[in-house]
Every structure is written in C-alpha cells, then in structure tokens.
C-alpha cells in the first residue's frame, strides 16, 4: 500500500506539503500531473495538478521525487508542495485517495515505515512524542464531538447492527450444540442488507454531515442580550442571527463556518444563559452548555452596563480556552475593570455595535486559532480516511451479500473484516462485544 499525508502540519496559507510513500508513488505523480514527467531524483519541478477523475485543475505547485531506499521512509517518496489553503490541500488529498492502492496514512505510519526500513533517527522520535500526544488529544476531541451528534448516533447504530449480525453467526458456530436458532443466515442477511444500504447512502451523501462538523469549534456564550449575535454578525459580516434588543432572541444554536487565517472555523452562537422557567429556553440553554463543553475555544461576552446581573452562568465557563469580551464599554464612562475575571486567555474592552476595540481582540482570536489548528489534523484527512474505511467495509459487506459461498465461516470472515474497517470509525468491535451479545441473547450452558 502506498500512503499519503499532509506533512507540513499547517492548513494555513503559504505552503502545504503532501508526502506520498510506497510503491505507487511514481504513478501518483503521473496521475496528478497527467503526464509522464521525468522524475529526476531530488529535483523540484513546477506543474499543474489535476483531479484524476474530473480533470479539474487543483493547483499549480512543485513536486519532488526521492527514490527509495535513500528517502525518509526508505521507500519511494514524493512531495507535493502546494498552496496551503484549506480547499487546495483538501482537493489534492481527495484526488490522491481516488488512486488505486493509495490511502491516507494512519497516525504515525510514516514513522513506522521509516522504522521498519531502518531509516529512523531515534533521537528524532523523542520530539515526535509531544507532537503526537497533542495530535491524539485533538483527534480525540474531534471524535468525541462527532460521537455526540447525529453522526454519532448513526455510527453507534451501525456498530450495534454489526455486532448483532456477528453474534448470530458466531453463536451458530461456537455453540451449535445448544438450543440456538439454526436459520441464522436468514436472520443476518436483512441486517447486513440494511447496514450496507446505510453505508452506501452515507458515502453518496456528499459528506454533508462531516463538513458541518469539521473545523475548530468556537462557542459564544453570555447572558441574553449581552451582544452574542452582534459578535457573530461582526465575525461573519452578514446578518445571520436576528439581532434585536429583546432578550432571548437566539433560542437555539446558530452556526457559521468561516475561514479564519486559512483555517476552517465554526462559530456557534448559543441561547442566552439565564435562569428561566420557559421550557424551550431551558432546552436551548442545555444545548448551549453542551456545545460549550465540547468547544475548542469559548468567547464569553459580558454586558458592562448590567453589572448587577451576576453573570454567574457565563462566568462558569471561564478557563484556559476562554476569551472574555466586556461589551458596551462606549456607554460606560470609566470601564469597570473589577468585572475582569481571573482565569482566561484575556479580557478586552469593546463596543460590538460599532466595532470599537475589536482589532486587538481579533488578533488574539486568530493567534489562538492558529495555535490550536497547527496541532490538529486537517479535517479533510480524517474525512478521506473515514471514507476509505467505509468503502472497504462496503466491499466486505458486498461480498457477504453476493454470497457465492454459503459457508458460514466465510460469511463470518466477511463480517469480521467489515468490522475491522468500521471499528476505525465507530470504535473497535472486539470479540468480547460479540460474546457479550451472545450470552445475553441466548441461554448458553451445556
């Protein structure tokens, strides 16, 4: 297998480097440049890069080839140096993932190949540890965020269906002496048919769900009418939230996707935090709190004109990922800095209505985003990886459904392989999960 990954780490404008390693490397270069360019070792050439399926122009950039074994991994390696914007990087990655025998690298896989080929400088690994750790943390967060939402429910149900199907097959193999159903294939087939259908549909869905969830999550919090929606409008420069003076206009969640210094960012406006009896509003506040917990960054807005309103609910969210805005400073003769809370990234006096004092805040926000995104994997990578796993799982389920072989142990093998692929997305499917299902569902015990 030939693997690829973004190795420049940043999704930021400037230069992005995508590294490819493995036997198909040369073909990948030919496919993206649409010509048999001469690949002189370690020589940069300027080229247009195309999507191999659609022939769409993706970017103009440099490519360099390092023949194995004198390369970083010991295999044939190529580097595409392209414009670092999010869309360009995403496009080239997608293009590579369409090529046969190419897939996006697993975490740490380049290093692993270098190690296997005795190419790894062990001292270099030490520095790697911190980076990898940060990467895992942010990936975990990303994964958690996904598992929390609608997508998470879908994934959970897939995993559940698969475990059920596997349990039926395995029970008829390992416990054939027991009083268990012997028409297992007829029970399992509908489950797999549905599962396969779901996956196919999901893959064809234009990855809408995923696009909504990628990027850094920034949540705006504050009491009703503190200026949250005004900030959202300021950031997105168009009227997305209804801004009015009646407290409690934003009852639900509003989300805007922005490009901030070249990084994808989701800005989330939430219901105003206050004690209330209104059931709908309570639900809105609950969701706001939920989004705040999962956020990468939080912006807490405090209305300095209402110091009497103890903004306790908002202040609960202060922490090392919180920026605080003291709004409506223009209307207060001498800004009351006693409001400035302790634990946060920083505190800014602003007037959101006329944009006063916003420049330093924007600087700080951008710096925070860059800081955090540098360590995060580009979402497109996660996405290509997911899609590859799903496609592969789909293939195994296809083989199951075509059932040229009716042998139960082969059907079970198809499902095991599908589970291995799906497990990368939905969480591992372990033999213990299957056994647990068997022992709760069937009375085993000869």
């Amino acid at each position, binding site marked *: 297998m030939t693997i690829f990954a973004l190795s420049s780490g940043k999704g930021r404008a400037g230069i992005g480097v995508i590294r490819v390693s493995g036997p198909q490397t040369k073909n990948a270069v030919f496919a993206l440049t649409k010509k048999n360019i001469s690949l002189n070792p370690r020589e940069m050439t300027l080229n247009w890069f195309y999507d191999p399926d659609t022939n769409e122009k993706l970017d103009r950039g440099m490519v360099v080839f390092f023949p194995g074994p004198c390369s970083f991994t010991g295999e044939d390696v190529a580097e595409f140096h392209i414009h670092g914007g999010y869309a360009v990087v995403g496009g080239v990655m997608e293009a590579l993932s369409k090529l046969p025998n190419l897939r996006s690298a697993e975490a740490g896989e380049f290093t692993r190949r270098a190690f296997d080929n005795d190419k790894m400088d062990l001292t270099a*690994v030490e520095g790697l540890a911190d980076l*990898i750790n940060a990467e895992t943390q942010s990936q975990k967060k990303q994964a958690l965020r996904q598992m929390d939402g609608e997508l998470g429910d879908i994934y959970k149900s897939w995993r559940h269906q698969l475990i059920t199907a596997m349990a039926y097959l*395995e029970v008829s193999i390992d416990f054939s002496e027991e009083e268990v159903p012997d028409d297992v294939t007829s029970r399992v087939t509908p489950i797999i048919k549905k599962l396969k259908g779901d996956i196919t549909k999901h893959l064809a869905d234009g990855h809408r769900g995923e696009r909504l969830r990628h990027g850094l999550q920034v949540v705006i919090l504050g009491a009703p009418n503190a200026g949250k929606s005004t900030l959202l409008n300021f950031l997105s420069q168009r009227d997305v939230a209804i801004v009015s003076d009646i407290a409690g206009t934003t009852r639900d969640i509003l989300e805007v996707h922005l490009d901030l210094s070249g990084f994808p960012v989701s800005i989330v406006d939430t219901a105003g935090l206050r004690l209330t009896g209104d059931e709908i509003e309570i639900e809105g506040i609950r969701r706001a709190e939920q989004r705040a917990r999962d956020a990468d960054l939080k912006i807490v807005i405090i209305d300095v004109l209402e110091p009497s309103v103890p903004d306790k609910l908002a202040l609960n969210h202060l922490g090392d990922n919180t920026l605080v805005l003291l709004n409506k400073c223009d209307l207060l003769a001498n800004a009351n800095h006693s409001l400035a809370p302790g634990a946060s990234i920083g505190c800014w006096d602003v007037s959101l209505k006329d944009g006063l004092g916003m420049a330093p805040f924007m600087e700080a926000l951008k710096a925070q985003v860059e800081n955090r995104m540098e360590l995060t994997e580009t979402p497109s990578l996660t996405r290509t990886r997911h899609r590859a796993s799903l496609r592969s799982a789909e293939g195994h389920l296809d083989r199951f459904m075509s059932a040229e072989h009716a042998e139960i142990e082969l059907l079970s093998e198809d499902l095991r392989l599908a589970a291995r692929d799906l497990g990368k997305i939905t969480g591992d499917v372990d033999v213990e999960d299957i056994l647990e299902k068997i022992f709760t569902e069937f009375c085993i015990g*000869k």
Partner: protein
Amino acid sequence: MINFDVIVIGGGHAGCEAAAASARLGANTLLITHKIETIGEMSCNPAIGGLGKGHLVREIDALDGIMGRVADASGVQFRMLNKRKGPAVRGPRCQSDRKLYREEMQKILTNYPNLIIRQAAVDDLWIKGGDQPSVSGVITDTGEKISAARVILTTGTFLRGMIHIGDERIPAGRKSIANEIEQPAIGLSATLEKFGFNLQRLKTGTPARLNGKTIDWSVCTEQPGDQPPVPFSFMTKTIKVRQINCHITHTNEKTHDIIRKNLHKSSMYSGHIEGAGPRYCPSIEDKVVRFSDKTSHQIFLEPEGLDTDTIYPNGISTSLPVDVQEAYIRSIVGLENVEIMQPGYAIEYDFVNPQQLLATLETKKLPGLYLAGQINGTTGYEEAAAQGLMAGINAARASAGCDPFLLDRADAYIGVMIDDLVTKGTDEPYRMFTSRAEYRLKLRADNADQRLTELGIGIGLVGKDRALRFNEKISKLRLFGKILDDLKISPNEAAKYGLKINQDGVKRSAKILLSYPNIEFEQITNIWPNLREVPTEIIEQLVVDSTYSGYLERQEADIVAFRKDENLILSTSLNYNLIGGLSNEVKEKLSKAMPTTLGAAARISGVTPAALTTLLRYVKRKDKKAVA
C-alpha cells in the same frame, strides 16, 4: 538431596502435560501431586474437546503431547461438532470413560523417561535471594525441601478452594468421585500474596451425579456418536473402545418453579459467593432467572463410563441445597425416580491475574516460577493442558539455557489463548471459542500437525514415531499437491466433463478446481483417472487445504503485518510513567499489562496508534524468526 531441573506441582490436566513435555525435552522432572490415584482425574464432565477446545487438543497432540492419545484410549462416544459446516469450524469432541482416562494417563506417565512422580502436598515455595528473589524449589507439608530452579504450579481449583452447597461451606479443592473432600491448598496462596501477586476469586459449578439404573431411558431422546469415530490424535488409527449413546431430556415449568421458589437458598443468590462464574456455563438457577421466558432447557445425560452406572446430567449445575436438588431433578421427564449419587456444588477458588505472566507462562515477579491451568483464570481440561504443555516446554528449555518457545496468534489456538491471558487478563473463567481466533480459517483442527509438528521436531519435543509418520504424510502431501498443481485444463475442455466454470479461457489446475465448492473430487478423476490412486486421506487433506485458499492468501498479508509487530520487543521493566507523549490513561493501561511486544501493546484497548509510534523508541527487534 536430589536436584531436579523442573518440579511440577499438581497432577491435573495442566500438570500432566507440563511434566510430560518437560521430560520429553530431557529435563530431569519431578511431578508432585496430592494423590497418585487422582492423576488425570476429570473434576467435572468426563468429556474432551469441542469447538475451540478440540482444536487445542489437536495442537497439543501435534506437539506430541499426551491428551489426545489418552482421550482416544478412553472415549466412549466421539462426535465431530459442526460436521456439516466448513473444516475450519469443525471441532472433535468425545465423551470419555472417566476411569479409563485416569488409568491411561497414569500408565503413560509412570513409564515416562526422565519423569519421577511423588505423592505429597506442597505447602510453600522455596525462594532464594532477598532483593531479587527467585525460585529454588518447593517445601512440602512435612517440611521437606526439594530443590529445582524451575517450578510449575498447576494447582487448579485448589488454591483456597471453597465448596458451596446451599449455605453449607466446605474448604476443599474439589470433591472426589467417591464424594470425598479433597484438601485445598492454603499455604501456596499465602506465599503468592507475600511475593506481591494479585490473587482474585472465581467460581464454577458442577451438577449432581445420577444413578443410570434409576433413569427411565425410554422417554429420553437418544444421541448416537459418529460412525466411525474420528480420533483426536494424529497417531491413532482407529478407536478400540466400545462406543455407547448419550441421551437428551429437558427441564420443564415445574422444575423452574421449584428452583424459583428456593432461589434464596442457593449459595449464588444468597450472597455467599463473591467470585465471578462463567457466562457460558451458568448454573440452572442462573438460566431460570436470566431467561425466565424459556419454559424448558435441554439436558444431556452423559454416561461417566462403560462399567459404571453414574450419569453426568450436563446443563444443570447448581449450588442449591441437596433436598432442593433432589426435588427439581425428579421433576424432569425420565428422572422421576432417579437416585442422586452425589449432589452438585459450586466451588470458589483463587486465581492469579495472568497479566502477571510472560508468554512463556513464567511469572514476571518470581523468575523460575511458572503457572499453568485453572490457576491462571481459565476453565476446562484442554485449556489447562495446553498451558501445561507450553509451561513445561519453556521451563525445560530455560533450564537447558535455550530460548523461549512461543506460539503466536497466527500459529495456533494455544497462541491465541496465552496472548489473550497475558495481555488482557481475565475476569471470568476463560474458555476457548473459535471466535477468539482472528485467523480461524488457518488454525484448523485438521491441519494442527502441518502447523506445529515441524516446530516441535525442531526443538526435540517430538518422538521418533511421530516424526517419522509426520514426515511421510508431508512428503505425500507435497508430492500429490504438486501433481494437482501441474495438471491443468481449459474451461472449454472442462465443460466437456460437465464442470461448470467461467468460460474465460484461463486454464485451471486440478488443485484450483478442487477448491470450488461445487466441484467434487470424483468429477476430477473423470478427467485424470490416475488421480484415483492417490490415498483418500491425502486427497481429503488437499481438498480441505484448498477450500479457503482465496481467503488465506489475503490473510497472509495481515499475518505478515501482525508478525512484524510481534517481533518488536518491549522490555518488561519499562517505566511507562517516564515516557513523554503518552496520555495518563495509556500509561496506566500499559503499566498494568506490561506487554512484551509492540503487537501485544496494540491489542490493549485504548492504546492508540500514536502511542504505539511513541513506543517505537523503546523497542528492540527480535532477530530470530525473521519475517518475510
């Protein structure tokens, strides 16, 4: 004082196989057990094999172990489970004559070269070295010290064993066939704790034994064995023991009512038992409670032998008081007038969390001490025997200064089991299932010899007779396999013989034709009549070998990747807390499991690929067993 190379404590299934393996490798071996006459005793059901378990027996046999041959010499009913499914999931099983089994085992062991057997109770380990203690022998309950640098503990359910019947509690290792109490091992538990081993409790149970003369067989369903019986051992040609039938009956609503009414009297339900029992082997109380909508459960009535009337009613193990046992058993069809010869009981015992072991089954804490069998949290004779075999081999090899002999998950079920135990540990009695093996299509009962015997010959574990027979078989398989590869036919031509294959113009070999499920060997002999001369058993094996060829080729790539990680060794003295870049959760998991290879680390749940990359810094490559 004589000095032994290896001492094995316990003459159960683990102990017998351990002692024999150690002696086969030439180590001067001593087997100490409570009673000579209980060597090879089957504590529970006199049956060997089954799914996963039968695979283990074949593997033990392939390494010239004794279990398969003893089962063949004592089996009164043989059945190949899943006969109608594919070869990978067929499991040989037999019902043994309990007495014949024991006698055959004792006969083999008492004449085993390099092996001495002694009757004694071991009370303590003899340990030397203050700061870095290691084993130097054992101490019996009479205070006698016997010296050996390697000791294998295979004490089964005896460590602080406690029998429960209703609210009665009796300290015991188990009950003998004569319904006598066998003494538990108390001192050894204390010693293990003293050296910092983490002991936990597990529970298992056994049903009452019935007098067959008082059963109304006419109302039970007969269950015959296979004809002809298929033996376990690759060395056994035919089964000579007389074959008999088993029977099946069922519990009913009345049975369940009695049990439900008396539930509070069961030791399990009155809170006397803290240890976890096996989920796949629940007591009848459990079945009635957990599956309350089932109105009937099946019971296999299995004879314990040819010249005894004792019947083992498989499926109704219990810890209810004796009078309740009698009442519910007599509510069952056919058992209305049955005489109970021995009541059922539950037993609770100590086991050592197997994460404290290396893959050789040597303990990490006390060099020279090996543990095998139920003491490691497993259940079943076959699981015990397989561990015994590996502990015996490794103890003997260590005393001869040789490298460990390990089997991995792609070699054998033995490898799957030991890896599961030492990397993941267990919190219920561990039993083998075929679903535990990710390379199930490769690890078949039929090819255990092809997978393992050569490895065994390589380390001098396999006797001359077997080696000879094995080599003959292999050369025949190679010879005829090559012939089948070389005979080729075009689809066009094949169609003339009535074979339905894709008309794609690609020539196919006889071997490939055989791998198609819809083509029989008979049809192929029409094309090449000479093939009729190939011995049947060789053809059968070749057919089975080719059944999964497509899948197996694909699996090979997985196995190569898997083995790569297995060859990257992690030191067991690694301090994970000092490694930067690992999350606290991962650190904790790794510190607990102390995996010995990168592959094992990967199998611990929660250990991420990123964490594994970090660990690359700390691995050493194993040079032997080079990987392609």
